């Protein structure tokens, strides 16, 4: 727990010095949503309303993929990763701290903004709430999964595209449960089972990915 808090505090401190960078994912999300709306503006209003929450979910997923590379990249480039691994205190808790702080700083702002976009685009409160909850559960799972791919592609110069190719197919179950929870809510059906499934996926990956990520980092640093 001490290692977790040490890494977490360090990450927050670094992020607080990086200024406007935290706003970038939000800007990116707004632009994607705007583009989606322009591209579907000619279809019927009811269909737009049905598609909008799904479109927001997909946009958050894309923003999440965009940021994955940065989980370990800076630490690798400035030597922090070597230093941490050699210090014998680099355990799974450090990985969880890094992934959690990364999610908190890059994806959570997007998740928080999403309900406002949803309400602004005329989606009802219930669907907006389910959208928010499914994103709160779904996006950390994506970060956990993505951390393994980020570790594997760490030393590659053009790793960003490969990272997306590795990770996107693995996001399919999360996307299915997330979007169907939102869709069920829009159709005034229960979304509970989808949210439970999303939670189970999150817990499973919380157990598996830190160990896999640690192993992947050692392989990459070889």
């Amino acid at each position, binding site marked *: 727990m*001490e290692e977790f808090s*040490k890494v977490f*505090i*360090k990450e927050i*401190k*670094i992020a607080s*010095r*990086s200024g406007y960078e935290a706003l970038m994912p939000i800007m990116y999300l707004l632009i994607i949503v705007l583009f989606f709306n322009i591209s579907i503006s000619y279809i019927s209003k009811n269909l737009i309303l049905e598609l909008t929450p799904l479109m927001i979910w997909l946009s958050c997923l894309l923003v999440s993929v965009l940021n994955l590379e940065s989980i370990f990249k800076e630490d690798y*480039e*400035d*030597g*922090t990763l*070597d*230093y*941490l*691994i*050699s*210090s*014998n205190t680099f355990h799974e808790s450090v990985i969880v701290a890094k992934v959690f702080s990364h999610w908190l700083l890059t994806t959570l702002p997007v998740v928080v903004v999403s309900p406002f976009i949803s309400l602004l685009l005329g989606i009802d409160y219930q669907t907006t709430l389910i959208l928010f909850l499914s994103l709160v559960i779904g996006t950390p799972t994506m970060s956990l999964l993505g951390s393994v791919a980020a570790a594997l592609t760490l030393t590659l110069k053009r790793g960003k595209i490969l990272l997306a190719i590795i990770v996107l197919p693995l996001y399919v179950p999360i996307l299915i449960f997330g979007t169907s929870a939102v869709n069920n809510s829009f159709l005034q059906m229960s979304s509970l089972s989808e949210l439970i499934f999303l939670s189970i996926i999150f817990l499973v990956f919380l157990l598996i990915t830190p160990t896999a990520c640690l192993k992947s980092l*050692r*392989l990459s*640093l*070889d």
Partner: protein
Amino acid sequence: MNLLMKIINLTIQRNDRNILDNISLDIHTKSFLNIYGANGSGKTSFLKVITGISEIESGAVVNHSNNQVYVGHKYGLKTNLTVSENLMLDLQNNNRDKKNKLTDALEVYKMSKYRDTLVKHLSHGQQKRVSLMRTLLLDSDIWILDEPFSALDEETKGILNNTFVDANEHDKTIIITGHSAFKHDQLKVRNFLLKDGRIQ
């Protein structure tokens, strides 16, 4: 002197070439080792394996201490944080004792006036000094330093030599790498030439 680390038949292969070829070595407490050799001779690979950064492909490294500090070519510093923030976050507890230790380390390396300076505003040499300060702050049994004298001015080289003597008196084990044999009047240095993947 107790056996601190035992390296048994260590072999590392890259692109069908043996970078390290069947190396065996006993490292005892309070010993000072200098692994030297030409560029690309495998010095950094050797250090990365014994520190646990790289996976062992063949052979074994038995480390009886789980308390080591490694300073590599990259300094492991966050450029958007100040010198003191970088070093304090490494320490286990942010208590008064550790703060005193930080003050002492800054004085030893003559960096006190840069305490609250962002690392990105320091020169390479100064950044290296900050990374070397970690050896003084962490109570590690083993110091593993990759080419510690590179990028340092004469004054800092003198400081580093003094810290080696002091650490040796406090039973620390020091492993460094370099391009030539290392001699020191007050230290019993074991020099090993790393050539063609073998220690000579």
